[in-house]
């Protein structure tokens, strides 16, 4: 039981980090139609922005804020300079995925050329340990979970109650139709890159906090967890991604406790494969 509770706690934290990233990824893909595999690379780049500020003496939570802005800026730039020109020339989805992989190499190893191959950690107090219903969590971990919940509420409000959110959903459902209905899809797409980019930067920093130490290529495997969560919930579906994040987070950590930690990502991979084969639109999606 203790093992279960401990792994359940780890699972919740992984789910929290994953939820922020997966919602960002799925919004990005749903609205802009770019399957941005460089998402993980941008996450780590933003985490390094927080690291540099942290090294300069800034509190890491302020660093998190700046990293989110950096993630937004970098994602917007990535679209404006790279993806958008391809889309304007009607490049195939496959060509865009290949471009995204190329950008992954450029960002990841460009970063590695700057920061070197060794891992780094933030300077931060992990806070005291809190006992909650048999779960042992540090204050930092609790803050990460609270942050994830706050982000999910914000996304819910954005999508349900604001004009922008409705425009994003409309653009995701049918871009030409949204445009003829007077939605300025170019503006919606730019804002989507900024918002999802901010989520990406935020996710990168909390991922780095949670992992303890990180380097330029740390997010490679985490990207697979993100993809699994996104496809479990159905690509482009924000609420599906939240659900997917919880399932994947818990499944990987609990299986790590009972099987072996080396294979914990394999279960995410298997779930992703099952989803692709059985229901590519996600458990909540139409068949």
């Amino acid at each position, binding site marked *: 039981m203790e093992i279960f509770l401990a792994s359940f706690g780890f699972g919740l934290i992984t789910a929290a980090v994953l939820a922020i990233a997966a919602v960002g990824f799925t919004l990005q893909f749903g609205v802009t139609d770019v399957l941005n*595999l460089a998402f993980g690379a941008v996450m780590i780049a933003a985490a390094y922005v927080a690291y540099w500020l942290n090294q300069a003496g800034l509190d890491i939570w302020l660093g998190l804020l700046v990293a989110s802005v950096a993630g937004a800026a970098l994602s917007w730039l990535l679209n404006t300079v790279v993806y958008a020109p391809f889309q304007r020339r009607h490049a195939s989805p496959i*060509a865009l995925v290949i471009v995204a992989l190329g950008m992954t190499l*450029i960002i990841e190893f460009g970063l590695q050329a700057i920061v*070197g*191959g060794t891992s780094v950690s933030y300077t931060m107090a992990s806070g005291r340990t809190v006992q909650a219903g048999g779960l042992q969590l540090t204050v930092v971990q609790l803050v990460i979970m609270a942050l994830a919940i706050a982000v999910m509420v914000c996304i819910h409000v954005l999508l349900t109650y604001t004009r922008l959110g409705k425009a994003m959903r409309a653009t995701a459902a049918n871009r030409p139709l949204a445009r003829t209905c007077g939605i300025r899809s170019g503006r919606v797409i730019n804002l989507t890159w900024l918002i999802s980019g901010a989520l990406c930067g935020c996710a990168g920093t909390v991922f780095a906090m949670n992992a303890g130490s990180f380097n330029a290529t740390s997010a490679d495997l985490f990207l697979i967890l993100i993809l699994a969560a996104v496809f479990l919930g159905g690509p482009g579906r924000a609420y599906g991604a939240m659900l997917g994040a919880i399932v994947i987070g818990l499944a990987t950590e609990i299986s790590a406790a009972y099987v072996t930690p080396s*294979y914990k990502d394999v279960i995410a991979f298997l779930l992703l494969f099952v989803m692709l084969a059985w229901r590519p639109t996600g458990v909540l999606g139409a068949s």
Partner: protein
Amino acid sequence: MSDAVVFYTVTLIVYGVVDVIACLGLSQQFGVAGVTNFGFIIFQAAGAYTASVLSLPSDHANGGFQLYVGGLNLPFPLPWIGAAIVGGLVALPFVFLVGKRLRGDYVAIGLLVAAVMANLIVTNYRSFLNGAAGLSLVPSPLQSRLNPQSLRYQWGYAVVGILLALLTFWFCRRLTESPYGRALRAMRENDLVADSLGKNLRVLRAQMLVVGGAIAGLSGGVLVGFINLWAPSAWGYAETIVLFAAVIIGGAGNHLGAVLGAILVPLGFEEATRFVPAFGPPGLIPAFQWVAIGLLVVIFLRLRPQGILPERRRRLATPAAVSGLTTGDSLASLPLGRRPGPSHGRDRHDDVLEVRGVSREFGGVRAVDDVSFVLKEGHLTGLIGPNGAGKSTTLALLAGTVPVTGGRIVYRGQDITTMPAYQRARHGIIRTFQLASEFKRLTVLENLLSAVPDQPGESFMGAVAGRRHWRAAEKVHLADAAALLERFGLSAQSNAYAGELSGGQRRLVEIMRALMARPDLLLLDEPMAGVHPELAALIGEELLRLCSRGMTIVMVEHELSYMDRFCDPVIVMSEGRVLAEGAMTDLRRRPEVVEAYLVG
């Protein structure tokens, strides 16, 4: 040459040969067939591991310092053959990913993730293939009888490698330059349309995965026999991107381009940077290499997506014999016509197709709502209705492009409601599309030939059997195609890419392509849109002539004068339902029809 230079040269040649073989496999898969396998490196790794454990002795032999399965101690060339076979077999679990339902980019993601996971599992599961440390002391081929360190052995290895690369090139070329290769390229250009012409996408893609996998496996076997070790660090997922970079830069779809790319990117790149004086901390130069690979891919896709050596245009000579035909000659004088339907041979006015209460919902909207009608053999039936009436969806339901959500479709006595589109096409139900659907990077002639139903060279084995096996059939079909082109005035464009034609010409290509399939039931979606009225009239007359020879045709068209002239009966649809059916002259007198369509 000094010994050191020889060893270096031979190493370069062997690495080059391995890259060339792998890139040819990828070129066949991705460049020709459009199957994006981001897990390509798995197959090379599978081949290398297979060759290793087949040639290594049992894992107790060397004091048990490394663990692995197998250890069969097999003599050359069995390890290499095994490498190719296992490389092909490894593709089988991925076949379920490449059916037509799944988007190409999702397939790519699935395979990419598989590559990462395979590496993770092999790294962590030590007793399988010795984990992260990998396998070492892998025997060189024939090392018990020859001395692998001798110069003659080294040169011999290089020559055998080159011969294998040539063999791979010859094999890929044989596949690609056959009717089978044409079907693969058609699938690459537009898989939905290829499906509607009777190509089994799942089988074609599965064959490509297996063939590409076997070729990749062979390359792995050749490599491991030379370097004598193999570990997970040699086949990270990013290595696949290097091979993609090579194929894209060399020219996807052109096997010579793949060879060039293999020499320029994986080989040239690694070697060029070897001579850069070391600078910065360790790992800096490899990091720059990866950045450069990424930049090369992005820049080439942006500025020269066709690569250095673009896919070349296949010019086909049309037989001179048929050019005696003039535009006055009718199609009836051509061997074209319908193929016999499944239970053909009954009376002329048999019911060809019976549609019973068919419906189709899209997210709660009933695009087609409880539609029933019967198509009589030898009739040109018109299908009209305002925009959004469900005409195109109805055609898609009949052809199987879109599955029904309710009702039944019976074709010549056989229930085909759940039959997939490619099988319906093989039974003689051929459709055209409302939007342009020509295979853009196939020539006009190739577009026409791609639809032919009975080409022995269109199967994998037929292509392997070689030109002799399919040349005669090809000649007949070329004559048919040439006659059709002449009839519709497109002879001058025979060898132009279909993507270069005007809108009206593309329409014609599509109709001719459908006729080349010798349909029993032809479903035409706005065949005359954008076509010059004189030519449209010619098309109409030819269609009537084909009907008089037993073909059954349904035509969606907005221009009512064509309905008046050619179609009887005419079905009127509105809001997903059949509003009326009958002769056009009668329909014009019916108020509900006039209200729904003719006026509004």
